[in-house]
C-alpha cells in the first residue's frame, strides 16, 4: 500500500506526467516508450464542470424562450447583456488578480442568465450590468471563485439590485403588451389587493413578473431535464415544493379568506425557478442527501413565512440565501454514518 503511494508523490502528480523510460536494468529488448503515470482511478465518468454548466444553460432555454415570447425582444437583449456582463466581469477580475482565466467553466454564463431571469422585464440595462458585476465580484470572486462562494451569486446580485433599486425592481409589465403597461405580480395583487390570478395563466406564465419566473411550465420542462441528467439533486425541489404546499395549505385551511391556497403558492412568483435552478445550485447547497432534505424544508418554511407574514410579497430569494448561509452547518451535522458505524452484524 505504501509503495503504491511513494510511486506517485501527491502534489506533484496533479497532472499526469511522463516518466523517463528505464534503461539500465533492462534484461531484454527494452521498450523505448514513456508511459503516463498517474494515480488511480485511470478511467473517469464523462462528467465535467463545464458540461454541467452547459446543461444548466440548456435547461434554462425553455424558460428563456417563454420569457422572450411574453416580454419581447427586450428580454433577449437583457439576457445577452446579463451574460456578457457576468463573463466580462469574471474575465476582468481574473486579469486584475493575475489569476488563470476561469470563464471557460461556464459558471459565469449560468450566473448571468439566471440573474436576468429573476429580473423585471423593464429593468434598465445598466442595472443588469451592475447586478451581474455584483453577482460575480462580491458573490463569487471575493470568496475565492467558483466552488468557494457561500451564497448563490445570481441571487446575491439580485438581492443587491432589490436593495439598491427597489422601485424598478418591483415595477412589472403585462406580458405581450407593446408599451409596457404596468401591472402587479400575482403575489403582489394577492398580498395587497387580495385578488387571485387564474391558475392557467399562472401555469403558462401569462402574468406579470420576472423575465423567467412567470411560466411554471417552461421551468418544469427544464428542471425535469436537469433532474433527469442528475445535475440537480431531486431532493431539493421535491422537499422545497412539498414543504411550501403543506405549510401553505395549513394556513389556507385555517383561514382560506386570508391566505392563498397551495396551488397558488406553488405556481406564483419565483418559486419554480428557485426550486429547480437556484436551490439546486451545487456550490451553495448541502452535499449530503439528508442535508438536501433539510435545505429544501428550511427554505420552504422561510418562504411561506415571508410570503404570508413578511413585508415583501415574495420570499424565494431570501429563503434560498438564508439557507445558503446554513449550508456549511447542515453539511457538518448531516454527515452520513460511516459504513458499518451504525449496523454491525
Amino acid at each position: 500500500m505504501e509503495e503504491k503511494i511513494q510511486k506517485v508523490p501527491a502534489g506533484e502528480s496533479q497532472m499526469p506526467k511522463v516518466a523517463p523510460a528505464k534503461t539500465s536494468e533492462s534484461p531484454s529488448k527494452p521498450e523505448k516508450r514513456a508511459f503516463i503515470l498517474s494515480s488511480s482511478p485511470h478511467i473517469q465518468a464523462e462528467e465535467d464542470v463545464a458540461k454541467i454548466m452547459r446543461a444548466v444553460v440548456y435547461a434554462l432555454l425553455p424558460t428563456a424562450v417563454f420569457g422572450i415570447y411574453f416580454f419581447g425582444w427586450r428580454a433577449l437583449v437583457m439576457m445577452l447583456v446579463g451574460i456578457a456582463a457576468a463573463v466580462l466581469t469574471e474575465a476582468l477580475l481574473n486579469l486584475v488578480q493575475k489569476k488563470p482565466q476561469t470563464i471557460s467553466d461556464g459558471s459565469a454564463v449560468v450566473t448571468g442568465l439566471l440573474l436576468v431571469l429573476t429580473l423585471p422585464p423593464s429593468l434598465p440595462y445598466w442595472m443588469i450590468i451592475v447586478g451581474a458585476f455584483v453577482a460575480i465580484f462580491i458573490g463569487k470572486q471575493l470568496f475565492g471563485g467558483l466552488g468557494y462562494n457561500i451564497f448563490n451569486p445570481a441571487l446575491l446580485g439580485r438581492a443587491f439590485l432589490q436593495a439598491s433599486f427597489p422601485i424598478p425592481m418591483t415595477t412589472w409589465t403585462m406580458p405581450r403588451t407593446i408599451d409596457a403597461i404596468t401591472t402587479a405580480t400575482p403575489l403582489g395583487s394577492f398580498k395587497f389587493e387580495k385578488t387571485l390570478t387564474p391558475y392557467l395563466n399562472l401555469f403558462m406564465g401569462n402574468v406579470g413578473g420576472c423575465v423567467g419566473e412567470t411560466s411554471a411550465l417552461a421551468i418544469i420542462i427544464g428542471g425535469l431535464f436537469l433532474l433527469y441528467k442528475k445535475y440537480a439533486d431531486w431532493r431539493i425541489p421535491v422537499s422545497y415544493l412539498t414543504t411550501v404546499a403543506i405549510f401553505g395549505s395549513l394556513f389556507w385551511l385555517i383561514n382560506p379568506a386570508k391566505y392563498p391556497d397551495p396551488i397558488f403558492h406553488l405556481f406564483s412568483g419565483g418559486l419554480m425557478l428557485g426550486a429547480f435552478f437556484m436551490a439546486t445550485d451545487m456550490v451553495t447547497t448541502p452535499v449530503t442527501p439528508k442535508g438536501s432534505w433539510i435545505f429544501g424544508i428550511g427554505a420552504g418554511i422561510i418562504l411561506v413565512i415571508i410570503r404570508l407574514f413578511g413585508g415583501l410579497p415574495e420570499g424565494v430569494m431570501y429563503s434560498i440565501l438564508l439557507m445558503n448561509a446554513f449550508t456549511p452547518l447542515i453539511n457538518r451535522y448531516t454527515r452520513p454514518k460511516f459504513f458499518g458505524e451504525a449496523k454491525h452484524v
Partner: protein
Amino acid sequence: MSLKTFAKGVHPAEFKSLSEDKPIEKMPLPSEVFIPLQQHIGAPCTPVVEKGQMVKTGQVIGKSGGFVSSTIHATITGKIKTIEKFPHPLGINVPMVNIMAEGEEELLPLENLPEKWENASREEILDIILRAGIVGLGGAAFPTQVKLNPPKGKSIDTFIVNGCECEPFLTADHRMMLEQSQELLTGIRIIMKVLNVKRTFIGIEANKMNAVDTLRQATKSFSEITVVPLKVKYPQGAEKMLIDAILNRHVPPGGLPLDVGVVVQNVGTTIAIAQAVTAGKPLIERVVTVTGDAINEPKNVLVRIGTSFQQLLDFCGGLTNNAAKIIMGGPMMGVAQSSLQVPVIKATSGIVCLSDKYTQAKPIYPCIQCGNCVSACPMNLLPTRLARYAEVGNLIMAENLGILNCIECGSCAFVCPAHIPLVQQIRLGKLQINELKRKSKSI
C-alpha cells in the same frame, strides 16, 4: 427479482468483451524471470538460494519471514543470475531473484502431501498453503494461511468466494470460473473444512451469467454452496461490499470480515489452494488478463510469476502505437507502470493497456460541491471534505471524518466532474496520519 447489492457505488463501462470469451492460454516459458522476494503483505522472505545456483521450478527460493508472510518459489528451471534490487510494479526497487532458463524444465511438487485431503488435519492443510506460497490473488496479496486461521474467539460461520471481478476490463476470474469449476469446488470444500463452516456463497456479478450457470451446475449436489448473482456495480468485489450484498452484514469501521463471522477468498486463490493441496503445486503461475485498447490481442494468459510485462505483452501481440498507459490491475485501483521491465507478481490480476484516448489530461476545476462523490462512496464518507482536509494538512478533521475508512476504490474520483484527484489526496492524508500514529507509538 432485483439482484442483491450494496448501497451507493458507481457503474463504469465494463470493457469486458475484449477478453471474456478468450479461453485461458498458457504462455510458453519465458527465457528469464525476476521473482521479487516480497509479493505479499507482511514480512519479506529471506532468500535461501545463492547467485549462480541451479534451481528447479517449484524450488523454494524465499522462506517465510514471519507470521504474516508467505513462501516464494522458483518459477522456471534455470540458473540464478543475480539477486539484486529491480523495479517492482508497486513502485520502488525491491530485491529480486533473477533466474535465466537453463536445462530441462522440471517441477518439484510440494512434499508431505496427505493421501486424501479429506483426511488431513486443519493444521496440515494450513501448512501446505503456507508452503505453497498462496496469497490473495485478487490484488491484495494477503497471505492466505493467515486469513484462513482466524484468531481464537472469532467464530466464522460463512465462507464467501469472491467471483465479482468488478473492475472493468478484467476477465481472469471469469475464465477460471468457467474453465476450472471443478478445482474451484474442491478449493471451496477444502476451505470449508479448514474454517469449519457450514455454508458458502459464491458471489458473481450478473454480467457473468454463464459462470453463474456453470457453477450452479457444478455445485448442484452441494446444498451448502449457493451461487449468488449480484448486481453489476463497482466496487461489488470489495470484501465489505460483498459481505453487505450477500449477508447484509456491515463490517465495522477499522474491522475485518472475520469480525462479522465471514472469510472471503478470491476465485483464483481458492483454485490455487485446490491445486496445492490435491496436486502439490506451489504458486508459480497465475492467470492474468492482458487487455485494453492498446494491446493488439487481448487474452487471458496463464503465466509464470516473474515473467516481465514486456514478454507477456509481446505474447499478446505487443502494444499498439498509441499506447499511453500501462496499468497493473484494473483501471479503478490498479497502478500505472513507467516501465515494462517489471515482473508479473502474485497480485497481478491483469495488465490493462490504455491508449491516449483514455489518458488525455482533463482540466481540474475547483470543487463545486456537487455531492457526486458523496453519493458514490460505498463507505459513506465525504470524499471531497477528506481530500480537502488532507490537502491543507488538517489531519485531525480528516481523521474525524473517517479518512482511515477509505478503501481507495476510486469511485469518488471516477464521478468527480471537477476531476479532482480525490483518491490521491485521501491516500496522502491516510499515509500522513498512519505515519504520525507510528511515530507516537514508537515514542
